[in-house]
């Protein structure tokens, strides 16, 4: 039975992935800080789909522990990283420690752990790595550029890793979900048509892994929106508030 390791396993998107992959018959490992609190999720997924769910403690910021974490047996067939931290742009931009925490949580930690898995999967010659990045990384904006810049770094890392691993049997998927109705965005008033439900993201990721897609936007309109946003000349863009 193939095994899917989900990093940041408490998040709504991670759990939606767990349901989607368990529904397709995969065993699941949820890796999260304080993983012992995920007992109800474990019971739920096991009961619904008759698969095995493991729980592991994982802190993306504990980069010294990443090699050991990735070395643990068995090496999963699929690794999905949903770790992320939105932060609060207004407060964080005047607070170095807070900005660094956002940068590290969205870039350094996720990239480092996926890098550790990539090397092992490459040696084995099979595997899929999925990184949940963000459209916020497609262009820095005043309202969330600390988060966005870290996601931009993560997106570039995933793209480079995909390039490196092509032909090795290991595939890399970059997910740019657009708005998703999760705990992270619960307090925001998001436009309904642009906002995906976590289950949609789970289904889209399952499909992307099956089909070997490279970069997915969950709702198609986001590809269009970001295409437009990227094409605005900087002289105009810098004066806009979006």
């Amino acid at each position, binding site marked *: 039975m193939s095994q899917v390791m989900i990093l940041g396993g408490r998040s709504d998107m991670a759990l939606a992935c767990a349901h989607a992959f368990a529904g397709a018959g995969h065993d699941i490992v949820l890796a999260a800080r304080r993983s012992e609190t995920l007992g*109800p999720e474990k*019971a739920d997924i096991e009961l*619904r789909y008759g698969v095995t769910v493991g729980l592991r403690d994982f802190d993306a910021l504990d980069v010294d522990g990443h090699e050991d974490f990735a070395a643990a047996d068995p090496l999963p067939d699929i690794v999905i990283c949903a770790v992320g931290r939105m932060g609060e742009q207004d407060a964080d931009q005047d607070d170095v420690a807070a900005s660094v925490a956002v940068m590290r949580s969205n870039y350094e930690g996720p990239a480092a752990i996926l890098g550790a898995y990539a090397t092992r999967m490459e040696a084995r010659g099979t595997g899929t790595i999925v990184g949940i990045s963000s459209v916020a990384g497609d262009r820095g904006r005043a309202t969330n550029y600390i988060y966005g810049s870290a996601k931009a770094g993560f997106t570039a890392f995933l793209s480079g890793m995909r390039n490196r691993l092509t032909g090795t049997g290991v595939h890399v998927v970059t997910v740019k979900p657009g708005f998703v109705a999760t705990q992270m965005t619960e307090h925001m008033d998001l436009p309904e048509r642009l906002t995906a439900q976590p289950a949609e993201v789970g289904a889209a990721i399952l499909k992307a892994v099956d089909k070997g897609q490279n970069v997915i936007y969950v709702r198609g309109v986001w590809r269009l929106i970001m295409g437009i946003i990227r094409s605005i000349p900087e002289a105009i863009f810098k004066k806009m508030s979006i």
Partner: protein
Amino acid sequence: MSADLSGWGRYPRIEGRRIPVRDEDGLRAAMADGPVIARGNGRSYGDAAAQVGGTLDMRRMNRMLDFDADTGVLTAEAGVILGDVIAAFLPRGWFPPVTPGTKLVTLGGMIAADVHGKNHRRDGTIGRHVLWVEVMGADGELRRASRSENSDLFAATIGGMGLTGVILRCALQLAPVQTGWIRQEMIPTPDLDAAMEVFERDAAQYAVAWFDCLAKGADLGRSLVILGDHAEPSDLPANRRPVPFDVPVRKARRVPLDAPGFALNKYTLRAFNALYYRVNAGKAGRSVVDWDSYFYPLDAVHEWNRIYGRRGFAQYQVVLPLEASRDGLRTLLDVIAAAEQGSFLAVLKRLGPEKGQFSFPMEGYTLALDFPVSPAALRLLDRLDAITLDHGGRYYLAKDSRVPAEVLHKADPRAGEFARARQAAGYAGVFASAQSERLKL
């Protein structure tokens, strides 16, 4: 954050604060600022699951926690959707002991409304099969309530419409079945008397009648009575016997937009109803149908509530005591047929006796039909209220969106007792819905 809190009938339209609940602490915090009400999947028709100041969205509390494969007892959080229970446990030979006509309801919503199915006479309401509930009370304490522990709270919460506290978890006894199929018998009956005669035979576990609410005179109450029993493997064709729980997957359709109001009028309805009757009368007799088509025909059409257009619709569901049923139903049907405002979905069921403290059923017949909302339709419903009162009938709060408080209290003296008990226990200031405010509960 302002959200649409309207019910399934999309009448009345209600906007207000939606608070997603993820855990006990979040729930306690939400309860601190004024009256709140729990909301499941919003399949009650009116304003039962809406509170402008704070509506607790329970759908994120949706984990199944334990299942005992020997006894069939499922322990789950209140936001679990019934359809997910079927998906998980029917393949292992277990089915909900009681189910409403849609599987898109939460366990909490089912318990709070104490729902009944087509098997009420045999199997009672869902409450009969609930072993315990865990309820967050007005004081912020979480209590387990069952027939032996906090039994008053248990009795008041089943059928309590969320007004006694928030159900967080429950233990539900599932029923063993041998297949995912139903042995069905469809019996066309020319009028009300004939339909009631079939019901009185009590020949099957499940029984429901669809009736043509536009048929008048001698055709009054022209119905299709549909009986059902869980099939055994020997009822299935040989190729299905080794996989008795596999059923064909149904394709879901969606009603794309709000249907324009003119699409649905007495002419199209009359034509539809007459056609439906003739087509199905042609299919009369016995057959074996899959569980999904049998119990949940409407779930195949997503958002079918939109066919009634933007103004929404109201369902009128009452139960009349057995001795008054024939006369009462006839009088109601006469007025409805003459008004020519009824709709596709007119349903008749025979209910058995019911002990639930504030639950809807009583021994007799229940009638449920939808009306596209209009000033004329609302006036018609007021006239139906008078007939219901005359015949000692009572109302189903899960379907109600418009009954006046005086009418409810006259029809159901238990409502006053319930309201007084809520006051005395200190629930009233903490848990209130738009419906409980309207109905003075």
